């Protein structure tokens, strides 16, 4: 026996020699978890057969992701895949042995709601910090009430869910980021949810049902991104809000609303956004802002606003007025983007140039970068570009992208002719 040992030593055996070369197994725990977390869950679990040391390393990874990339099935049979998926997740959760900080479930074939309830119960017991739940198919999923007990939650992301927290729900004290898309939630619940999460910094809300008046009461909110159908939006107590992107996906009828309410939406919108830095007004939101009284300039200038993106119908007088008000109110604007929204009814060509007269100097004093897209070369579009070029002394780049090839040549010819206030200005024409 001893002879054999001596002879065997030089070969590759699990002896000292291997231990010297094995650099990876003794890396600190948190580094191993980082490495394993970056693997698809399948590879991470498989690491348990590598060697004695690796046997239970995977069981402590704090991050469990079950999505299309991690779990790929070649079969087409729906129920087969579903069963397999449920099995695998059950196994992993059962064999996992440590705190779970991040849980993501986003597989396109996942349907079983009772299974998800069970998994959420499991993770809610282990100080979960991030939950991403995306239900691709099937009807709205209602997360169980144990989800609302996760007081360590920092990030919650739901897709295609119905939110109905229990009555005793007092909010997520640590929640910093909330991302709700395709969700159903009532007005009260939404307001309560937002206001009861004092640490909330990021709020994303897309395609929601059930909320018509958005009241945002979030003292630490910095990032706000919504897109959907609503009637009203107002910010209470959002001093730190610096990034706002709002898209109103439905065309509102101006005349009807004017009669009812003469207050200025524009003024109300900006009254609580003193430090806004990036603003994106998408879809029909400018129309909403144009409702009511529109001043020539906001009383409090948005001095921090560097980046403005507006989706506008250049033929609409109210919208133009609102846009001009905005442009006058951000003296430090660096980048501007105008997206021309094609309207169904083509209004007759205006004889007057809306943008012609401007008695305010020092508009666009710092504007460097402009993008105009979706235009069709009609007078109203070109008037704006002309106005822009002649009033931006430090402009570096103007990018123009038409909506279609129709009238391209005319557009380009006109573009060529416009005077430029900035000698550095490059006018770049992009193909539609």
């Amino acid at each position, binding site marked *: *026996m001893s*002879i*054999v*040992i001596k*002879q*065997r030593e030089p*070969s*590759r*055996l*699990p002896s000292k020699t*291997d*231990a010297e*070369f*094995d*650099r*990876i*197994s003794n*890396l*600190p725990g*948190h*580094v191993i978890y*980082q*490495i*394993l977390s*970056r*693997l*698809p869950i*399948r*590879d991470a679990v*498989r*690491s*348990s*057969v*590598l*060697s*004695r*040391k*690796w*046997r239970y390393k995977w069981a402590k990874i704090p991050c469990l992701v079950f999505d299309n990339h991690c779990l790929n099935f070649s079969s087409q049979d729906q129920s*087969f895949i579903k*069963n*397999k998926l449920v*099995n*695998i997740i059950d*196994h992993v959760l059962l*064999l996992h042995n440590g705190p779970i900080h991040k849980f993501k479930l986003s597989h396109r074939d996942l349907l079983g709601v009772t299974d998800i309830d069970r998994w959420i119960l499991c993770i809610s017991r282990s100080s979960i910090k991030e939950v991403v739940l995306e239900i691709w198919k099937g009807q709205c999923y209602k997360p169980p009430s144990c989800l609302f007990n996760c007081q360590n939650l920092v990030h919650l992301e739901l897709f295609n869910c119905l939110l109905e927290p229990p009555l005793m729900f007092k909010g997520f004290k640590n929640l910093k980021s909330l991302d709700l898309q395709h969700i159903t939630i009532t007005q009260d619940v939404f307001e309560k949810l937002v206001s009861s999460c004092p640490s909330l910094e990021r709020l994303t809300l897309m395609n929601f049902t059930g909320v018509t008046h958005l009241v945002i009461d979030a003292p630490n909110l910095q990032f706000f991104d919504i897109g959907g159908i609503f009637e009203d939006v107002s910010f209470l107590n959002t001093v730190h809000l610096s990034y706002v992107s709002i898209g109103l996906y439905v065309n509102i009828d101006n005349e009807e609303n004017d009669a009812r309410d003469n207050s200025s939406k524009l003024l109300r919108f900006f009254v609580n956004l003193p430090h806004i830095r990036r603003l994106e007004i998408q879809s029909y939101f400018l129309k909403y802002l144009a409702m009511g009284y529109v001043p020539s300039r906001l009383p409090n200038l948005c001095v921090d606003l560097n980046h403005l993106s507006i989706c506008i119908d250049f033929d609409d007088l109210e919208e133009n007025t609102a846009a001009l008000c905005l442009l006058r109110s951000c003296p430090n604007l660096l980048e501007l983007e105008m997206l021309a929204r094609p309207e169904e009814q083509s209004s007759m060509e205006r004889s007057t140039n809306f943008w012609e007269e401007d008695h305010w100097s020092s508009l666009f004093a710092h504007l460097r970068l402009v993008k105009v897209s979706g235009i069709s070369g009609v007078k109203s579009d070109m008037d704006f570009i002309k106005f822009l070029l002649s009033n931006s002394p430090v402009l570096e780049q103007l990018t123009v992208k038409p909506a279609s090839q129709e009238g391209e040549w005319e557009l380009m010819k006109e573009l060529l002719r416009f005077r430029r206030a900035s000698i550095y200005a490059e006018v770049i024409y992009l193909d539609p």
Partner: protein
Amino acid sequence: MSEVDMAVIKPEMMKSYIWLQTADGLIQQVEQEVAMFCPMICHEVIQKDMGSSKNYAISLPQRVNPAMLSLILDYCRFHQVPGRSNKERKSFDEKFIRMDTKRLCELTSAADSLQLKPLVDLTSRALARIIEGKSPEEIREIFHLPDDLTEEEKLEPLKNTTDDPRIRLLNRLYAKKRKELQERQKLKNIEVEEERVDDRSVDDLLSFINGDNGDSKGIKNSKSKKKNRRRKDQQKNTSANEAIKNHNKEPNGLNQVCHSAEVGQKVRAGVGATSNLHDVEDDIFDNKNEPDDGDIDDEIDPALKEKIDREVEDFARRLNSDWPERMQEILSFGHERKPVHFSLNGNGSLRRYANSEQR
């Protein structure tokens, strides 16, 4: 690049330097802004006022040897410059990461001890990329991991799910095959010793390989103990014998054989006799029983044994080839009562297993 070189490049500028000492005693000077990019060094300088002179050199953690330090400083030197674009940084990172895995692991360790999180992220991503999609053997090869898990342990999670004897048979067959392949590989590597190795029992070799401290005698003893236990346990034995008898008559009987663990072992034992391979970790299934349990041997007709052998090895080879898929299937199979997922690229024998009756 030594500190002297660095001084020459910018002779006019009054640069301040930080003194660093690696675990081996080597002291070097590094530009302040480069060194301060590491949080740990930064902390030492600011909180403890170290590093200002040779005598007060900051002693770096043990995991940072001079080679790693130089790599880390290269990284810091590039990234601490504020004007670089994201694209530049990314492309630097891509090139920086290209090194053998051993150094990559060392670098990860060193960066972690200096709390340089971006570099730890970069290296762990690279390591994950290396690991992803590879088979356990490949990973062990790359990282020099010892294959020190017993076959049982490797497949333990599967056992948790159910006591399905078919899985156990599968596990054992697979384990046997893997051991066989490994052993062949190891034997190939040692040409000189080959002769002598053959003299020894393969048993002993395997027990040594697997870190088993017992010698062959010990194994024999335990085996005999096991045997005694088995003898006492009449019921199991008789059923085993019966099952094996059935097995002789028709291969379908193998299904019934599956129904008890020990019978399963005996089948394996029978099979094992034809190859040089023994699985020693598990006392339960070992070949030494074979010559002793002469009665069992007699039960199996040699010709039939050959046939069973072939079938089983075929089966095991198929397992071997698509292990990952097998793992997944088994995970799900364990829960399901229907045999649907168990079908392999079948020959008749395999399907037979699949169609067996449930308990």
